[in-house]
């Protein structure tokens, strides 16, 4: 700590420090997720194209039981630190292990629904919770 404060911009410096403190938790979380992603053959969600067959890995941020046209459907939002992706299992009320905070690897064909990327009935692999 040299303590070399620049007298001409004390507010800017202070604001940067506070900004870093405030933003850190969200950014850190995203950063952690990006690092966590297994390097082998996984696509980053941000790079996914419509109709492309991909394998993605990340954490489930939300899990929703959302009936579609009378048919139950389990919907989850997968986040890998770059972009969110909706994962939908049609015809299922619940799947053991599909819960918020869970890390999974999913593969399937990307579709688009109202401008959001969706992966219908993907093949998935639950990754262990906690220490690996």
């Amino acid at each position, binding site marked *: 700590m040299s303590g070399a404060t620049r007298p001409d911009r004390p507010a800017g410096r202070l604001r940067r420090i506070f900004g870093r403190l405030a933003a850190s938790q969200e950014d850190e*979380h995203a950063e952690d997720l990006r690092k966590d992603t297994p390097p082998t053959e996984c696509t980053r969600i941000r790079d996914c194209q419509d109709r492309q067959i991909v394998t993605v890995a990340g954490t489930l941020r939300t899990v929703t*039981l959302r009936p579609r046209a009378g048919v139950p459907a389990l919907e989850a939002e997968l986040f890998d630190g770059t972009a969110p992706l909706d994962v939908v299992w049609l015809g299922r009320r619940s799947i053991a292990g599909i819960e918020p905070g869970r890390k999974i690897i999913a593969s399937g064909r990307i579709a688009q629904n109202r401008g959001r990327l969706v992966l219908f009935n993907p093949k998935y692999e639950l990754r262990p919770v906690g220490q690996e």
Partner: protein
Amino acid sequence: MTMLPKQFLLGRPLRTAQMGETLLAKRLALPVFCSDPLSSVAYATEEILMVLALGGAALLHLAWWVGAAIVLLLVVVVASYRQTCYAYPGGGGAYVVSSENLGPTAALTAASALMVDYVLTVAVSVVAGVAAITSAFPGLSKHAVLLPLAFVALLTVMNLRGMKESGRAFAIPTYAFVLSIYVMFAFAAARMLMGHTIRAESAHLSIHATGTYAGIGLLLLGLRAFASGCTALTGVEAISNGVPAFKKPKSRNAAMTLLVMGVLAITMFVGITILAMVFQVHVADDPTQLGLPAGTSTPTALAQIAKAAFGNVTVLFYFVQAATAAVLILAANTAFNGFPMLASILAQDRYLPRQLHNRGDRLVFSNGVVLLALAAAGLIVAFDADLSEIIQLYIIGVFVSFTLSQAGMVRHWGSKLTDATDGPGRRRIRRSQAINALGAALTALVLVIVLITKFAHGAWIVCIAMPALFLAMKAVRRHYERVAEELKVTPDARPERPSRNHAVVLVSTIHAPTLRAVGYAQSMRPDTLEAVTVAVDPAAAERLNEKWSAHEMGVPLKVLESPYREITRPVMEYVRGLRRESPRDVVTVLIPEYVLGRWWEHILHNQSALRLKARLLFTSGVMVISVPYLLDSALRREERFGRTAAGEPAAGESLTSV
């Protein structure tokens, strides 16, 4: 329960339509508005003698000249303000007059001066009143700080009750004071005519001069005595300020009251000064100057005069002291009338917070009354209730506002002159203008004298406080203008529907409030509707999910991840995410909450929804709806207070954690 003491202290709330009933007849207006100038004769003479005593007994004869100058000033100021009463029947305080004729800067200067002086009026009058009490009962002098504070509190309550009733309460002491002073004059005159030589108890005390005053020094001392004596002029503007409070014909009644006040004040001041000189009253700020041990509490000049005049008729002496104390304490009431009225005008012009313009239960500007009381109490405590210290701050504000208001009146008549065409009308206007011009010139001169002689003795505090107040009021106005600018709409603006409405019900568990909130949300028919919960505890989230299906809620339940076991952040991020996707949509967040009736019950419940609500308020495009569910205790509370406290919001509400 909370309403009962308030009703007991302040009386029943008055309807807005009952406003007219607070108008004052002349005989009531005189004590309400004039107790200040009338009562200041109780200490004006003493202040003059005290300053002159610094130069030794030889200089006391200057009191004649100083007294004469003050009488002249009083005549001119009263004459000037009578003009104002006629010209401004809607209330012609210094602020109104100068804002109409001299512009906003002058008006704000006058307003800040007046506000500072109103606070000082309360402090000085109450402290002087307590001095009159301790002169009669020296044993009480150890409560010199506590007693003034108690009286300020008493005045506050009386004024919160409303003007007319306080006018009635103030009529008796004011008239008693005037009567007692005239009885004292008569008594003294009769005894002197019978050949008695009357001397005050302090007549034998020699005065040690603190220095020799000659030439410029003598002149300055004389001017300082004059400046101290000018306290007799405070409060004259109260009548012109309060013209609307008079019964019709308002202007004539106000001018008449002002004249009566002038005659009474001048005769009493002259009489007391003559008696003080004849009885050879010797007073000094520092008792050692009179050869007394330091710390001796000396009776006031008026108390000495009364004691000497009545001789062994001590009942009358106590009567004078009681009346003096009462009138002085009630003199503070002039400020309690003037300050809230001025503050409300300023608030209307957006120079002060708008709350000061609200009329309370009893149709008085309650917030202004309370503000004044707090400021005066603070001043009394800060100055340790020392009259001769506080009085140094006094007067400057009065004369600033006098000068500005009289100068404004000169301008006012000037513009009237261009409209008037007939000879007699023009002559009348010319005469009024001349009176006001004389008033302006004299008060400006006095202001300079007061500033020079008092600055080093404490007046500098006022010279800081007034500009500070001035700048603060400017800042308040700027703020209101900025807000108004942002809120402004163009004439062709129409209500605009958001393209879509996403409703989100926050859920922590399934209970009655949740069901009500979900049902209510469905009745709103939003474009999308979902329930959201935060998975702080995965097992609980799992159970909730199962129950959700069992209750056939008909709404998808979204479980949010919370890697750091928080509630607020995941919800905030989720709502912000919805907003990011389509900025023209709105998000409605429904929060089910149960309302508790007792304050201690709140401690037992989590307040996380309250925090969340506060955060969501600062997110644009997000509406927050509370869906209340009244618990038994809250319902009973409603029954208990439903009649008395109609319209009063529940003291607090507790929220379910989400």
